């Protein structure tokens, strides 16, 4: 019972001493900050460049100038582009675009709905199949059938290529420690480097068209597949593998017969994450002419038409939820369909495909019961109401958080001399994770200084930390609620899914009205995107606490509050640290979006670099700074997590 009430306490004295040193460091920082304020902050004006930035500009220009003569372009990139272009265009010809001299795609809406329903039925069961059919018909009713199919084509292409490359790489990283060490930083880079930085160069390498859009998507979407596959392979119990080896199995046999089957479920979750990541890129890829729903969103926002943008955003959410539920169910128990259902389904699907190939009514979604315009009107009305009646409240809240939290933290980080911040960070890293962590942090800080964007990095860091704190607060409150109540979970989860894939700019328009162009708006946008991840992780962690322990605590007369604080949260601390880590990374991935709504600093540098040639180098350097911040915070939280959970 004692162990239940107070799980694994660290030695008291040790903990006490640590917090003293901690406090001492912070106090020393504050004092020195007063002395050295605004000295050595390494500030750089919005239009100013460093030699590094100019050098990157030069490289970029040189690459562009040699595009048509360089053999690497002619024989390497062009070949890759051709293959991917062909692949995407082929899928589009099947389901999205007029093709083969016909005014409609090969398979019309009825056929696509039937195929999607049948596949869901086969891998995920009746309920999910119904959801799929309803979801796809909904897309048509929204008046966005063709756009949705374009988006689906591009997503499928990006996901297939991600998996073709990602699963073998993941297996490799799962089997070899060395491969894992090499791949991890590369994957960090791919996931945290802002897309804006490589969007323009991509079109230089792979031209404007489906290939560039697909590659932009898969750079962001492939890492989860690789990471989760590697993790799955590593988590197969050692003794299972040893048993197989002692029976005389070769490495290949062990891989195919033991490792892959036991890792299957987890690998499917990797596929799921890859799909979600690919859908998150839909709007950004539209900036380089990627076809589909992203274009509708981007276009609507030029005139601040929130209704139209929301309708298209909703279609992305519907696609995401359908694909998520299908893959999640596929990762669960393997199900066997009765033979009659299988053949019956196959037959119906075949007929539907034939019909949709032949008859116009089944090929083009022509609905008289269109609901897109109602959704559009509803969203517009809600937005206008919020913009008209809430700003008084929200403006005050913004000012409060800004003055109480953001400004002091930013002043401390961005107005201290760089050496002081460096010293503090290295000292804290040492306390958290020992010499290794200290070295990592020191290297990261040196890199930040090298980018020439130290002060911008500190401003961004301040906002990132505030956003992460808010994410964790929300994560704990909502996560505990969901973890304790199945019903709450059922209602909240779709909302979380929506928040994760709804293109940020759809809700940024009303946010701008509520909170003005400010750092706070950027922080709120980051919270909307990052909180769902933290909430889900914490909810799962709370639920994983064994019911017997919770019951024992209740039986001893603990109140709900006591049970949560003394039992469930401490026992879910693995999940809490994971949530903090993921929350941070997700917040960082919104830095650039923040730059579009008033966050300034690194986010704005990246956006400006994408928009103006002479700022390209600076934008790239800012992208690198975001990656470096990400790596530093990631390693620090991981080290802290290790210390805390062991």
């Amino acid at each position: 019972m004692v162990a239940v009430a107070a799980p694994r306490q660290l030695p008291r004295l040790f903990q006490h001493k640590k917090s003293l040193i901690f406090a001492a460091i912070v106090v020393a920082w504050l004092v020195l900050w007063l002395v050295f304020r605004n000295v050595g902050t390494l500030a750089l004006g919005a239009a100013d460049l460093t030699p590094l930035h100019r050098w990157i500009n030069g490289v970029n220009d040189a690459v562009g100038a040699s595009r048509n003569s360089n053999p690497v372009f002619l024989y390497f990139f062009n070949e890759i582009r051709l293959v991917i272009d062909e692949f995407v265009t082929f899928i589009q010809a099947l389901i999205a675009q007029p093709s083969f001299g016909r005014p409609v795609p090969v398979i019309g809406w009825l056929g696509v709905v039937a195929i999607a329903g049948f596949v869901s039925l086969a891998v995920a069961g009746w309920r999910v199949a119904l959801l799929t059919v309803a979801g796809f018909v909904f897309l048509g009713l929204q008046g966005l059938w063709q756009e949705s199919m374009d988006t689906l084509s591009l997503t499928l292409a990006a996901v297939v290529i991600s998996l073709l490359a990602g699963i073998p790489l993941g297996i490799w990283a799962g089997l070899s420690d060395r491969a894992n060490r090499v791949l991890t930083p590369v994957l960090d880079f791919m996931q945290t480097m802002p897309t804006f930085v490589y969007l323009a160069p991509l079109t230089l390498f792979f031209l404007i068209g489906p290939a560039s859009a697909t590659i932009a998507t898969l750079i962001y979407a492939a890492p989860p597949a690789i990471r989760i596959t590697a993790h799955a392979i590593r988590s197969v119990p050692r003794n299972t593998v040893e048993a197989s080896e002692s029976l005389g199995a070769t490495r290949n046999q062990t891989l195919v017969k033991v490792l892959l089957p036991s890792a299957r479920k987890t690998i499917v979750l990797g596929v799921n994450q890859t799909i979600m990541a690919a859908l998150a890129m839909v709007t950004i890829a539209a900036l380089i002419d990627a076809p589909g729903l992203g274009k509708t969103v981007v276009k609507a926002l030029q005139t601040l038409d929130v209704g139209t943008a929301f309708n298209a955003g909703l279609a992305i959410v519907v696609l995401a939820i359908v694909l998520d539920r299908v893959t999640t169910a596929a990762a669960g128990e393997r199900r066997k369909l009765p033979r009659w259902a299988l053949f019956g389904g196959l037959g119906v699907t075949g007929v539907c495909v034939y019909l949709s190939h032949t008859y116009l009514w089944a090929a083009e979604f022509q609905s008289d019961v269109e609901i897109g315009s109602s959704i559009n009107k509803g969203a517009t009305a809600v937005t206008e109401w919020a913009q008209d009646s809430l700003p008084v409240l929200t403006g005050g809240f913004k000012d409060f958080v800004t003055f109480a939290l953001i400004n002091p933290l930013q002043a401390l980080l961005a107005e201290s001399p760089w050496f002081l911040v460096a010293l503090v960070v290295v000292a804290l890293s040492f306390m958290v994770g020992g010499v290794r962590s200290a070295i990592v942090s020191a290297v990261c800080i040196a890199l930040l200084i090298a980018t020439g964007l130290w002060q911008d990095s500190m401003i961004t860091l301040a906002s990132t930390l505030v956003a992460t704190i808010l994410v964790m607060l929300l994560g704990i409150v909502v996560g505990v609620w969901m973890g304790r109540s199945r019903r709450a979970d059922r209602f909240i989860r779709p909302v979380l899914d929506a928040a994760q894939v709804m293109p940020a700019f759809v809700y940024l328009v009303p946010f701008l009205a509520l909170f003005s162009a400010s750092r706070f708006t950027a922080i709120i946008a980051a919270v909307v995107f990052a909180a769902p991840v933290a909430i889900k992780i914490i909810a799962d962690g709370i639920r994983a606490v064994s019911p017997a322990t919770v019951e024992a605590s209740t039986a001893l007369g603990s109140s709900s509050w006591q049970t949560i604080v003394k039992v469930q949260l401490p026992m879910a601390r693995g999940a809490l640290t994971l949530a903090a880590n993921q929350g941070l990374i997700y917040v960082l991935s919104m830095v650039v979006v923040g730059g579009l709504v008033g966050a300034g600093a690194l986010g704005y540098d990246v956006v400006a670099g994408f928009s103006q040639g002479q700022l390209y180098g600076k934008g790239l350097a800012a992208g690198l700074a975001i990656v470096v911040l990400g790596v530093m915070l990631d390693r620090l939280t991981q080290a802290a997590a290790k210390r805390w959970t062991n």
Partner: protein
Amino acid sequence: MARHSVLGAVLVGALALAGCGGAKVGDTSSGATGDCGTFNLAINPWVGYEANAAVLAYVAEKELKCKVTKKELKEEVAWQGFGTGEVDAVVENWGHDDLRKKYVDEQKTAVSAGSTGVKGQIGWYVPPWLAKEHPDILDWNNLNKYADKFKTSESGDKGQLLDGDPSFVTNDEALVKNLNLNYKVVYGGSETALIQAFRQAEKDKKWVIGYFYSPQWLLNEIKLEKVKLPAYTPGCDADAEKIACDYPDYDLDKLVSKKFADANGPAFQLVKNFKWTNEDQNTVAKYIAEDKMKPEDAAKKWAEANADKVKAWLPKA
């Protein structure tokens, strides 16, 4: 047994449905393309540009029977497309001396195709209510007097000058410094941020001053007033750090790829001849932004009402 009958019923039902028929795919054929060939038109992401492009595309398709491929791209990417042969024309360009130098002078993949006839203006704007209640604010000399009113959570103890879309050159930091203004440039980061700020400022009588430009569809809705800065004289913006004068007026022009110009086809002729006025563009932009018409429909409406102007753009046979 039961399962067989289910299967059978489904199949019979489906076939019956098929028998009902309806129009078959391929019953109607689409229009053929003429000798114009394909015309790759970049669409940069703002409504004024869209207006130019929509009208050009409409005329090219209707009168010249071209197959127009619209490519939605940011400026940087669109210019890059001149070299890779994927973009034929950019039909509203705001200065962009850096791009001009790179693609026209150095890489020689782009050439100018003349003015669009639209005049562009960049500057500092305030909402109309403010200009009405405090007319002297329209002179930069009086800006410091009102600096306190423009304070926000982002500008500290100074007034906030809101900057927006980084796609355009801004000299605002230098201007604030060199004109000794007690303001801080806050980077909104997008056109959306600017528009929302001005809309709200007008509605709730809030104090906002920011970077904006015309022609822009918002000006049809809210007549923002431009603040007078020290007049622009040629060369006053030569040294970026010492700028203390207004932005120049921009003659918005068109750029085409070298290949497209050399081929000298009907589509190129059309782009070269295309010229209209701010008023024309505002009309089409209003159709798109306020009346929520599709760009194609907006272009059609304008072109049908202005047949004589359109006729002047067509290649001489």
